[in-house]
């Protein structure tokens, strides 16, 4: 082991504290718990403050569009009387082209307020562009660390495009090959520069997304005079879903069902050099969605403010071919060229709408910009170059890394449900293993009830199954 690696990793907590400005330990109690709401309240921003900060940066107030042709198509495929109206929040109209601007602006604003000279973010996705764009606006320096290339030096085209975009905003982009040691490079840079850790998972980052949920509720009420029945969020690290759900709650839209949707990448190992370029989605997929739901604190801060299990009513999967088909459909019959990764929730919504009645409404809460590298054409070409077969068929037969099956008929687009109880159990197991303990306190049980969004009996059952003692 590299001695510098050991030295940096041993300074982990110290570097974190210095670079985020939050002492997470003050919120912790029991064996595994922490006061989530207190953390959000004391270290985040109020909705009003966030709206003002984002308004000044030109972030937010994105249009809410009704997808009339997709609704018509869904109704044609659904049983009689079914087929909810489908709406989409066009987050691509944010300054850096995605909802991540909402997270980026808060992080950079906070960094500036605390007097940091620059910001660093570890991200291969739209968040890098968001942080870089906001850093340009507020005059801070910016470094983005990406996992970008395989060992043959082949970059995932979407990540290469993100590097270009970050550089266009004046950021330094440091690109790496595949591996979790990206975290070491990230810590080393924080230590070297004394910049702010613009983590995706701080309370202010997540609070930045609350405006999305709030805005969505307000716009929907203005248009329709009621709350949406379902909001679908593309789910990766959980921040999009968490922030949106919190915003909806703040708007008092408490009856709206929150559905998470991820692209199924089952079978690909996220730390595998060979698997790295076999995926056609760099985010919104199960490689992030499942591990972050079952252990949110794996992120780059000690206590993640993104806690999807706390807010999710349902979690569904779609396959790569289904999202590509819907991306093409969005362009061809709705005139919106977006994504593809951001269209994961759209593919899910198209299927879910067919389960709902005609007088209901389902809202897809984001779009993202498209462009060279990101575009469906770039991703499918790259997949074909990597030996992946692309053809029409039934998307449920898709084998990730081997083929991408475009549905031969839109009626074949069908979400698959993930059992939330299994995720809850896995989360509780991780709570024990990561803390290296076999028992918890009574206070921890309430924390688990809140953090898993489950009843007392369900949690007690899981604890019994896992043979966890309560002291």
């Amino acid at each position, binding site marked *: 082991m590299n001695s510098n690696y050991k030295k940096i990793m041993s300074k982990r907590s110290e570097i974190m504290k210095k670079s985020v400005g939050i002492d997470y330990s003050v919120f912790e109690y029991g064996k595994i718990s922490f006061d989530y709401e207190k953390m959000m309240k004391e270290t985040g921003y109020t909705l009003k403050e966030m709206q003002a900060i984002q308004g000044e940066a030109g972030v937010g107030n994105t249009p809410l569009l009704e997808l009339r042709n997709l609704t018509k198509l869904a109704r044609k495929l659904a049983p009689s009387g079914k087929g909810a109206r489908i709406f989409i929040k066009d987050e691509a109209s944010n300054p850096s082209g995605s909802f991540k601007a909402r997270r980026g602006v808060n992080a950079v604003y906070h960094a500036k307020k605390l007097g940091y000279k*620059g910001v660093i973010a570890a991200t291969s996705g739209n968040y890098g562009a968001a942080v870089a764009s906001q850093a340009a606006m507020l005059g801070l320096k910016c470094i983005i660390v990406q996992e970008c290339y395989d060992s043959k030096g082949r970059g995932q085209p979407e990540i290469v495009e993100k*590097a270009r975009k970050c550089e266009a905003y004046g950021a*330094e982009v440091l690109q790496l*090959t595949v591996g*979790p040691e990206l975290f070491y490079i990230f810590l080393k840079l924080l230590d070297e*520069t004394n910049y702010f850790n613009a983590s995706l998972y701080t309370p202010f980052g997540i609070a930045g997304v609350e405006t999305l949920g709030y805005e969505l509720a307000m716009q929907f009420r203005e248009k329709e005079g009621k709350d949406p029945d379902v909001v679908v969020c593309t789910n990766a690290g959980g921040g999009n879903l968490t922030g949106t759900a919190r915003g909806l709650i703040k708007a008092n839209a408490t009856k709206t069902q929150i559905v998470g949707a991820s692209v199924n990448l089952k079978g690909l190992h996220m*730390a595998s050099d060979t698997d790295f370029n076999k995926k056609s989605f760099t985010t919104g997929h199960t490689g992030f969605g499942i591990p972050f739901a079952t252990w949110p604190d794996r992120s780059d801060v000690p206590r993640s403010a993104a806690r999807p299990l706390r807010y999710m009513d349902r979690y569904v999967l779609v396959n790569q071919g289904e999202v590509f088909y819907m991306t093409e459909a969005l*362009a061809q019959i709705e005139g919106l060229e977006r994504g593809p990764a951001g269209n994961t929730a759209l593919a899910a919504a198209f299927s879910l709408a067919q389960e709902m009645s005609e007088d209901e409404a389902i809202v897809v809460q984001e779009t993202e910009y498209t462009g060279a590298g990101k575009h469906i054409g*770039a991703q499918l070409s790259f997949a074909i170059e990597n030996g992946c077969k692309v053809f029409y068929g039934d998307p449920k037969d898709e084998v990730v890394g081997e083929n991408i099956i475009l549905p031969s008929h839109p009626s074949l687009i069908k979400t698959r449900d993930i059992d939330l109880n299994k995720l809850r159990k896995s989360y509780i197991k991780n709570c024990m293993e990561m803390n290296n303990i076999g028992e918890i306190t009574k206070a921890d049980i309430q924390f688990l009830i809140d953090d898993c969004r489950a009843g007392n009996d369900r949690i007690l059952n899981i604890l019994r199954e896992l043979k966890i003692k309560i002291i």
Partner: protein
Amino acid sequence: MIVKKGTWVRVHDIVLTVKERVDNLPKDTQNLPLEMWTKGILLDDAKLGDRAKIRTITGREIYAKLIEVNPYYDHDYGKHVPQLMKIGEQLRILLAGGDLDEL
């Protein structure tokens, strides 16, 4: 090839050798070094392929292998994908009230 001081360049470095990598990586990754690329202004004349010092856009100084001069992006919209062509037509026929066999 000698690259002049002040040129915008791209550098490459091994940040962790195979032996220095963490344990428990998938087998393929475990046998590979962790590599890094970044860009900056060359601080002294240097030969392409040699190690050289650069200053990045944020002002950090890095000593690494000089691999590219005036680096640029060439990612694009991909090649024509014939498999995508039929989706629009299928959807328009369905919307117009027609029924279409599977593609």
